[in-house]
């Protein structure tokens, strides 16, 4: 049983390693030129070579992503609670939200640049605007699916709307909230990198764009890998939080172990 668990935690590392090996071998076997698809070994040496630059730009991306994500959690929570708790807010706001979410965020960046200039702020706003929607929708769903019997029990005790919200609504929607955070954090990275690519002189997005304009393809790939790794790390942190906060929702499942 214990051995099986150890093996389970090793599997993702092994699969990743296998993927890199396969990639390396394929490039070597078919003599793929590095400006088309660089070999992982070359990517990693490039990463080491440019570690100072990559570190600087990664921190910038991480910073804008986390700020944007934090705002998205706050904003998404507020909008989700309002939409889920009130029929009127739901009918009036929901179409607008869906409309806004349908706009490709890359199209918004130039507008944000006109308002705030290039750099950090557009990246934060883009990360926020792409990440708040799943949070709002999930929290609203959690609130809207309170069992009517539960509501009746509370109302017959004399509970106010506010009490129903705090005693049932919010605890009940926390598993939905944490599920959405996992989606939102990865979306935040997409948002900030998009914005950096279009309008910034800092961040991994900018690093990749400038490297590709100089045909330094291995550096572009190094940037991609770093973004992926940061995404995985932040996702893992969200999962940890989720398991601590909503243990009751994971009863007996493999995930809680």
């Amino acid at each position: 049983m214990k051995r099986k668990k150890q093996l389970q935690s090793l599997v993702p590392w092994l699969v990743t390693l296998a993927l890199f090996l396969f990639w390396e071998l394929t490039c070597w076997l078919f003599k793929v030129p590095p400006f088309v698809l660089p070999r992982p070994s070359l990517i990693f040496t490039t990463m080491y070579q440019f570690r100072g630059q990559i570190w600087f730009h990664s921190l910038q991306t991480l910073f804008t992503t986390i700020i944007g994500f934090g705002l998205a959690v706050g904003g998404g929570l507020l909008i989700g609670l309002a939409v889920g708790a009130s029929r009127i807010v739901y009918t009036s706001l929901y179409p607008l939200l869906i409309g806004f979410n349908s706009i490709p965020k890359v199209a918004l960046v130039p507008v944000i640049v006109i308002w705030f200039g290039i750099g950090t702020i557009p990246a934060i706003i883009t990360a926020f605007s792409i990440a708040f929607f799943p949070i709002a929708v999930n929290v609203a769903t959690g609130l809207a699916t309170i069992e009517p019997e539960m509501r009746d029990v509370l109302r017959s005790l004399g509970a106010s709307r506010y009490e129903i919200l705090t005693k049932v609504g919010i605890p009940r929607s926390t598993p939905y909230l944490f599920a959405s955070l996992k989606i939102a954090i990865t979306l935040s990275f997409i948002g900030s990198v998009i914005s950096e690519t279009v309008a910034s002189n800092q961040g991994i997005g900018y690093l990749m764009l400038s490297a590709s304009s100089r045909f330094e393809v291995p550096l572009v790939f190094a940037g991609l890998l770093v973004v992926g790794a940061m995404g995985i790390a932040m996702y893992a942190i969200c999962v940890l939080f989720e398991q601590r906060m909503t243990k009751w929702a994971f009863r007996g499942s493999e995930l809680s172990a």
Partner: protein
Amino acid sequence: MADNAFVDLHNVSLAYGEDEERILAVENLNLAIEKGDFVAVVGPSGCGKSSLMKLVTGLLPPTGGTIFVDGRQVTGPIEGVGMAFQSSTLMPWRTTLDNIMLPFEIVKPHKHRLRTNRSEYVAAGERILQSVGLGNFTHKYPWQLSGGMQQRANLCRALIHEPQLLMLDEPFGALDAFTREELWSVMQNLWLEKRFTAVLVTHDLREAAYLSDTVHVMSKRPGQFIFSKKIDIPRPRTLETTFTPQFIDIVHSLREKISNEHEL
């Protein structure tokens, strides 16, 4: 109509929907329940039994007639009623003890005293759990309890704040026969101890006869009361009681009334 009745329904009707799609759920309901009585309501399915529950507690306003509880007309949700449904509706994020403490957080004056007198309230919670045989499960979560245990906890939550009125909507409906009969006895003991007024909606005639002082039979939709039967069997009743000729006769006569309703 008795003036001193604790629950008093006078010509109450309730309709759902508008215009042509209007459905009468109940019509001309008249019912008087004395304080401290245990009353059961039985009837064919869809006769508006659950509507009756919502009308008495004020969760639904009647379309006609008047409802009085404890001498006051019901115009909105009345406070401090205990309710238990077929699904136990326990909160999965709370332990059994925290679940049954919920009414203390909402009902006055307890909600203002809870913080300062917490140990006293916890003791009350532990006491009532003990009395239904859940003494060792206070810190377990609902999903760690069996269906019967969840329903015991549900009854505790409905009763812990000592409400004057307890509304039960088929609380034992989803349980197996043995567990159900066990819980009849648990319910009877709780009632004998506190003597609250209770309204039990059920379609189990043996359950109705076992637990109540009076059984009221409702007609099919739109629901009206068509027959009432006093159950003159001394308490505490036991499972043995349900096999006596007197008990069986009562169940038979109730059964007959409901069969007639289904054939009409």
